[in-house]
Every structure is written in C-alpha cells, then in structure tokens.
C-alpha cells in the first residue's frame, strides 16, 4: 500500500508536468486550430535560458521569474514573426512551420549548449517528507504545488479579468470579437505567450528529474498529447486532468504490470490515446463541435 501511494504521488508529480504542457497545447489549439509541435522544444529552450542565468549566479526564484518573462515575450515574438505570415495558408502548411520551429529550437540548443547532459537544480529541499510510513520526495510535492498554483492563476486570469474574457471571446468567435473591438490578432499572440510560459514551467520542473539536454521534452510532449487527447482538446480543464491521469497510469502500469516494465511504457500511453479516440474521440470533457454544412 505504501508503494502504491508513493507511486501515485510521483505519478501526480510527473502528471503535473504533462498537464502544464497539455494546457499549452490546448490553448493554442482552441484559438487557432493548430497543434504546436514545437511547444516542447520551446520549453526546453526556456529551461536552458534559466540554466544559463543560474550559472551566472542569479538566485533560483529570480531566474525562474525572469525565464517566465522571457518565455512570454519569446512566445509573442514567435507568433508575430513566424506564424502570422502563414495565418491563411492551409493548416498542414502551418503544421510544417511548427515542425520547422521544432528542429530549429532543438538544433540551436545543441549548438549553443552542446548535447552533454547537465544537472539542473531543484528549488525544494532534498530531504523527503515522511507521512506515516510513506516517504514522499520533496521535489515531487513541490512540483504538484507549483503546477496547481500556475493553474489557479490562469483560471483566475481567464475567469475574472477583462483581458482574459477578451481572449476567450477571440478564441470562440473571432469575427464577432473583432466587431466589438477586440484586437483578435494580438489576443492570439498573447495566447502563444501564455502557452510558452506554461511550457517553461513544465521544462524547469522536469529538468531536475530527467537532467537537462536538448531532447528533454520529446517524451514529455507525447505524454502531454496523450493527456490533452484524454481530457479533450476543446477543454482546458479536461486537458489538465488528462495530464494528471496519464502521469499516474504511466507510473502504476510501469510498477505493477511486469511484462510492460519500462520497455513498453511508451506503448501504454499510446494505447491510451487510441482507446480514448475510439471510445470517445472528443475526450472525456471535450464537446463535439457542430459544423454547419
């Protein structure tokens, strides 16, 4: 039972990372119908920027916040400079552009910081928590806390601020939003900025566990896809929950089903995607978008 609880908690911790990235994917998808394949690599790049600042002697939380700010501006700049010119191209052309971004980020990071794995510090104490007989890693618990905090902030932003309302309106109905004076183009850019921030949080939280390298986010992004699919690409809350579920299932299956072990762990996440898609293609919390013919 102790092992079970420990596995669930560490599953929730990794699930939080998937949730953050899944939320980033869903935000961009809702606003523009495009899945940003470069989301994970942008997050990896932001994590390297944080690493550089830490190496220059900036204290952890200072570097953390500065990285979030840089990621925000970076996301907006990428939307304005790279995505906007192909706005009206066929969707697949935009997908190819995000794939181009993916290889650029990956290759540049390898060029600037080399492919050598780098240790990344955690801001949380190394001493584990003890709750009864259950031992919980402090980083795991801290990770869950940070993820929940970020989610709460974003919920409050979208629910209670005029800007959040404007962004939701722009994603929901761009033409009418433009008519009431919302600058839809800038709302999309802001969405890219916010998505980059979530990605950066996920990157900085996962780097201490996996050690920093240019291919840091490859696997994470696939699990984030699984999470977003599970919860539904049309529902931000669902995507977050989906991320957590994928994290927990991944951990439990790896521990208890012996023939799967770590070798077929990946296949499990993918099997989950396929099963969800077959049973309920829109995900658990997604809604079917009715299109007029």
């Amino acid at each position, binding site marked *: 039972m102790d092992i079970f609880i420990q596995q669930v908690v560490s599953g929730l911790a990794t699930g939080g990372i998937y949730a953050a990235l899944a939320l980033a994917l869903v935000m961009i*998808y809702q606003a523009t*119908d495009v*899945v940003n394949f470069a989301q994970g690599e942008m997050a990896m790049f932001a994590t390297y920027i944080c690493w550089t600042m830490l190496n220059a002697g900036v204290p952890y939380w200072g570097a953390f916040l500065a990285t979030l700010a840089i990621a925000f501006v970076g996301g907006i700049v990428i939307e304005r400079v*790279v995505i906007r*010119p*192909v706005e009206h*191209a*066929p*969707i*697949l*052309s*935009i*997908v*190819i*552009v995000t*794939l*181009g*971004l*993916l*290889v*650029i980020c*990956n*290759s*540049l990071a*390898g*060029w600037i910081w080399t492919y050598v794995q780098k240790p990344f510090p955690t801001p949380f104490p190394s001493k584990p928590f003890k709750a009864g007989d259950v031992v919980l890693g402090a980083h795991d618990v801290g990770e869950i806390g940070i993820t929940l905090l970020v989610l709460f902030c974003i919920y409050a932003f979208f629910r209670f601020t005029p800007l959040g309302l404007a962004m939701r309106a722009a994603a929901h109905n761009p033409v009418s939003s433009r008519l009431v004076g919302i600058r839809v183009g800038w709302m999309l850019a802001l969405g890219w900025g916010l998505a980059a921030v979530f990605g950066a949080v996920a990157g900085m939280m996962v780097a201490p566990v996996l050690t920093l390298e240019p291919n840091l986010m490859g696997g994470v992004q*696939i699990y984030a*896809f*699984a999470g977003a*699919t599970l919860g539904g*690409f049309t529902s931000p809350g669902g995507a977050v929950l989906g991320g957590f579920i994928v994290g927990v299932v991944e951990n439990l299956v790896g521990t208890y089903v012996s023939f799967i072990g770590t*070798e*077929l762990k*990946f*296949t499990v*996440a*993918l*099997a989950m*995607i*396929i099963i969800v*898609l*077959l049973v309920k*293609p829109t995900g658990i919390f997604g809604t079917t978008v009715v299109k007029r*013919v």
Partner: protein
Amino acid sequence: MAPRALRAAGLLLVIAVACALPFVMSNFRLFQFTQVYIYAIAILGLNMLTGYNGQFSLGHGAFYAIGAYVSAIMMDKWNVHYAWTIPVAGILCLVVGFLFGLPALRLEGLYLALATFSLALAVPQILKYFEHWTGGSQGIVLSKPNAPFGLALSPDQWLYFVTLGVMVLLFWLSANLLRGRVGRAIVAIRDNHIAAEAMGVNTSLYKSLTFGVSAGYTGVAGALSASAIAYVAPDSFNVFLSVTLLIGAVIGGLASISGAVFGALFIQFVPNWAQDISKAAPWAIFGVFLIVFMYVMPFGIAGAIRLLWIRTRRSRVAHAPESRETAATQAPTTR
C-alpha cells in the same frame, strides 16, 4: 504545342534522363537517387490519403517499417526471392492499412493525426519486443541482389532500375485511379463528405480503401528500402521518418502526383545542403528552409508551378480571348 503533348514529351524526357543517370554517376549518388524514388513512392501513398482524401496521417513510417520488415524476414528466414517480397509487403500493408482505416473512420483531422502519430511511435518498440522474428535492436542484415540474366550491372545500378520501374508503374496506376470515377469519389469526400454521401458515394468504404491503398504504397516503398539499404533496424523507423514523409508531401505539394517527386528530392537532398552550409547546426538550417518554403509557396512546389503556369497562360489569354475557359483551373484547395 498542345499542353497534353507537351506534358507527355516532358515526361518521356525525364524518364530518359533517369535511365541515363546510372551510367554517369558514382555509386553513392546513385544510391541517393534510389532513395529518392523510394521516398517518392511512399510520399505518393501519403499524398493520396492526405492530399486527395483529406485524412491526415503522421504515422506512415509505421507502414514503411512493416513493409521493410516483411520483406527482410521473408528473405532472411525463408530465403524468398526479393522480387516476390515487394508485392507481398504491399498487399499485407494494404490489408493492415484497411483494417486500421476502419476504426480511424470515426476520427477527423487532428484526432486521426494523433492516432496515427501514436502508431508511428509504438512501432520501433513493438519491433524490438518480438526479438525472435525481428532480431531486436540488432536488426537484420541482408545482401544486395545481383542483376539477373547476366546483365553487366552492379547491384546498385540494378536496384536503381528496379526502383525506377516500380515507381513508374505505381505512379501510372495512381494517376489512372485518381483520374477516374474512384478518384472523383475520393476527392468529393475531401471537399464535402456529406454532399458526397448524398450523391451516392459510400464514404466509409472509400475512406478505408484509400487508407489501405496509401498504406500499401508506403509498404512497397519500405520493402524496396530493405533491399536498397540491405539492413533493417527498428530505430531507423522512428517517428522522424513519419514526420519526414509528411514534410515531403506538403513541401512537394498536396493533391499533386508530380509533387511526390519534388517532395522526395527535398527530403533527400536539402538536409545534405543544410549540412554543407553549417556543420554545427544543420537541422536549424533545415528548419529555416522549411519555414521559408511554406512562406513562399504555401501550396508546395507543385502548387507554385501550377500557379506560375496559370499566370503565364492568363497573360497569353489576354491577347486571345476566345480560349479563356481553359485558364479557369485554379490552385488546389486543400484544407
């Protein structure tokens, strides 16, 4: 000259040049061109599905892998002649693709892309798992076939001609398929599947069949690649292969048969150029190429050529107004 005769002459010229290449090129260059033809077959398969039928696939690398492994296992375990393995691989992939296409019918756009994407990710792991058949991560080493009938060709030259022949045959088949009644049904489903159904097109059957044919083409390409490289290993069929095929299809031009060749040339040679430009970060250069290509020609290379062709004809039409209706063809409308 009439456009039709012009096109036929151009096609014959291209094939003639392709037949002359093996006698003027080094073996390595020749191998690269063999690879271009193999990619072209796979991209054409993907293009039929994505460009003509409007179903997205990020997992065609999986069918490529199945084709390659079917061919390799048949040659390695049962000593089957390589020529027989190619149709077998194609037919097997057609069946697998058809079966995969049945449940995939429920999925559209992004969701289908994700389902196929996960297929592509799972395949290398599954291949490693069935170690007894596939040789695990060591893969299977094969030998290149020699030219038959005592022809004075090196194995590389012979394989080049085999691949070229298979490619021409498959391109001819798909051009005929897409031009006829079936092709119109496939395109109608892409443009408006409800209207297509109202016109009496059996959409589920056509969608699954297109998936099957597309997977079959890709399987043939995989089987050819097993002979051409003389080695198969699970990690060469990773998700990047699927992504590369999609890049080839979009850059070459969706809903265009000649686009498959342009796309294949792109994915074979542009990474090499990128490496020549910058040893340190070749993939960054490749990414920049991708983005620039999409800026300049959002409908791919074939789409850009078509637009250019229409424009030159328009300017000519302005002087001879009686033939205006022939210029009414428009740029491809792909979603």
